[in-house]
């Protein structure tokens, strides 16, 4: 993690803290309006952009996103106080979960391959012979790429013995697995929401921090303030996100004002058992493989780009789906808030009437900072329902497939489970999945677990802790849980 990334995170988090503080202050509208000036006061040093005005303007845009509004539709003259008022009063969060800040987007140089000064003008000219498009010619003894013929394939880069050919990368475009983010006429990034699977890879990739999730913290804080029965549903990844035990994080959530806290690992247990049954049925019917269905970005991918694999995708609901169902069954009027490291869960939540809001770990952390809650000093508190080891291991790559395998073993089923783990969605893994669908079989196993983020949910873009550490903490916490068996779930 470079210092640069930390600076962006620091900035984004500070803005969320300030929004929460403004909300709690009693004069939300006025104090929200003042945030850019409080962060960049008169005469302050300007270290990130050209001048104080530009910095304030970009901070303003970040606040607009922090209040849950899309920058794409912002007319730039609406006051932050107006946005703040709207955010506190609105009934439903905005559709589309991501927004690009045009003011923060640098409008990077379009992705191109070009020959640098390091070109030695060698006799072998491997670049020229490698290029299949005839784009390279020799001008003044050095290689030259004709941009109208170049297809950006990068073959010449690998061919050059001097490493003299470079490719300029547009970070957001290069990480997007489905080509949903592209430059518009002005050269700034724009998301095509008909293609976007909300995976959030562009958020982490942009070194200017120009891509934001539209936050729902104000919605959540407003419902809490109204005294509603707001229930926090914490994704199992949370066990790896704080240097404090989950039992203290639970108390911290109650202190924020949530009336109850449920472990989504509890819903993961339902997912495991349902998916195990689904798997068994499909294998008995002679299907050659099944894919998991708990990653929201993967489900969006199937819907928008890979419909041919749909017959192989398990019909099982996600852990969030079952947990929200449990919460709403207990109190149909409760407000459910899913807390996770994932941007695509926001999209899933919008389509699920049982999930009212989603906040991510960064937002949760920022609320804790604003409320000055020292988590480490809090008492422990217990969950009403304890979840299983398998459920708690869901956020790790391989965890879901392992859970299904264990469940079938506990049940004494004689079905061989061969997991094939797709650890991260990218162009390559999407091609693999396409091939599985096309051929009707997967050569590497019969249970294909797909997770959009590398490492699993702990690789989500709002993760607070480095992956290795998160993984260890989750494993330790999971080991406190019992096995995932039907009896234990039904007793609950």
């Amino acid at each position, binding site marked *: 993690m470079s210092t640069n990334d930390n600076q962006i995170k620091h900035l984004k988090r500070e803005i969320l803290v300030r929004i929460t503080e403004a909300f709690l202050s009693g004069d939300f509208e006025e104090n929200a309006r003042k945030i850019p000036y409080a962060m960049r006061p008169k005469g302050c040093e300007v270290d990130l952009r050209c001048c104080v005005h530009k910095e304030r303007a970009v901070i303003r845009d970040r606040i607009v996103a922090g209040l849950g509004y899309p920058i794409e539709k912002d007319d730039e003259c609406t006051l932050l106080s107006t946005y703040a008022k709207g955010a506190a009063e609105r009934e439903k969060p905005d559709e589309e979960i991501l927004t690009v800040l045009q003011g923060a987007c640098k409008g990077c140089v379009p992705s191109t391959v070009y020959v640098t000064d390091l070109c030695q003008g060698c006799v072998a000219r491997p670049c020229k012979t490698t290029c299949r498009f005839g784009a390279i010619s020799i001008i003044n003894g050095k290689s030259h790429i004709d941009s109208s013929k170049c297809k950006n394939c990068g073959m010449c880069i690998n061919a050059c013995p001097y490493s003299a050919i470079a490719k300029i990368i547009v970070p957001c475009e290069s990480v997007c697995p489905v080509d949903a983010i592209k430059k518009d006429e002005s050269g700034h990034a724009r998301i095509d929401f008909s293609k976007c699977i909300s995976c959030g890879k562009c958020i982490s990739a942009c070194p200017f921090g120009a891509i934001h999730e539209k936050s729902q913290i104000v919605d959540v804080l407003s419902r809490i303030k109204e005294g509603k029965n707001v229930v926090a549903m914490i994704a199992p990844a949370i066990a790896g996100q704080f*240097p404090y035990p989950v039992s203290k994080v639970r108390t911290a959530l109650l202190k924020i004002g949530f009336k109850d806290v449920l472990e989504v690992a509890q819903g993961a247990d339902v997912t495991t058992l349902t998916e195990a049954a689904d798997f068994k049925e499909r294998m008995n019917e002679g299907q050659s493989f099944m894919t998991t269905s708990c990653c929201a970005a993967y489900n969006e991918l199937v819907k928008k780009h890979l419909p041919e694999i749909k017959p192989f995708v398990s019909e099982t609901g996600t852990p969030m789906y079952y947990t929200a169902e449990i919460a709403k069954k207990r109190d149909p009027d409760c407000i459910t808030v899913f807390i996770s490291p994932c941007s695509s869960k926001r999209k899933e939540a919008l389509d699920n009437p049982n999930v009212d809001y989603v906040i991510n770990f960064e937002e949760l952390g920022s609320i804790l900072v604003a409320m000055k809650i020292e988590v480490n000093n809090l008492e422990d508190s217990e969950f009403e329902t304890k979840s299983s080891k398998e459920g708690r291991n869901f956020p790790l790559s391989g965890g879901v497939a392992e859970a299904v395998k264990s469940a079938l073993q506990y049940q004494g089923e004689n079905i061989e489970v061969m997991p094939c783990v797709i650890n991260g969605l990218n162009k390559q893994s999407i091609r693999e999945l396409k091939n599985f669908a096309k051929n009707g079989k997967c050569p590497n196993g019969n249970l294909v677990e797909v997770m959009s983020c590398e490492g699993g949910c702990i690789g989500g873009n709002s993760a607070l802790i480095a992956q290795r*550490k998160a993984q260890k903490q989750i494993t330790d916490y999971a080991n406190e849980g019992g096995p995932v068996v039907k009896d234990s779930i039904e007793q609950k």
Partner: protein
Amino acid sequence: MEKIEVEICMGTTCFIMGGESMQELASILQRKYQDKVNTKGIVCHGLCNTDCQYSKAPYVKVAGDVISEATVDKVLSAVNKKLGEEA
């Protein structure tokens, strides 16, 4: 030679504002300086609770001196400086 004391805040604010690399600080210091440095985690320096000072978090103390908006680089150079003074 007396050990240089590095106090790393494990409080909520410094943790949230610190970012991932700060979590590696203790092990980096340990690896680099071994017994020359005494690293300890404390809950809160009490610096973040004054007016909006969380924006300067995370805080780390090196031999009593406060480093605000601490980064791994900043802390390492502060430790180096202290070691230089003592040498």
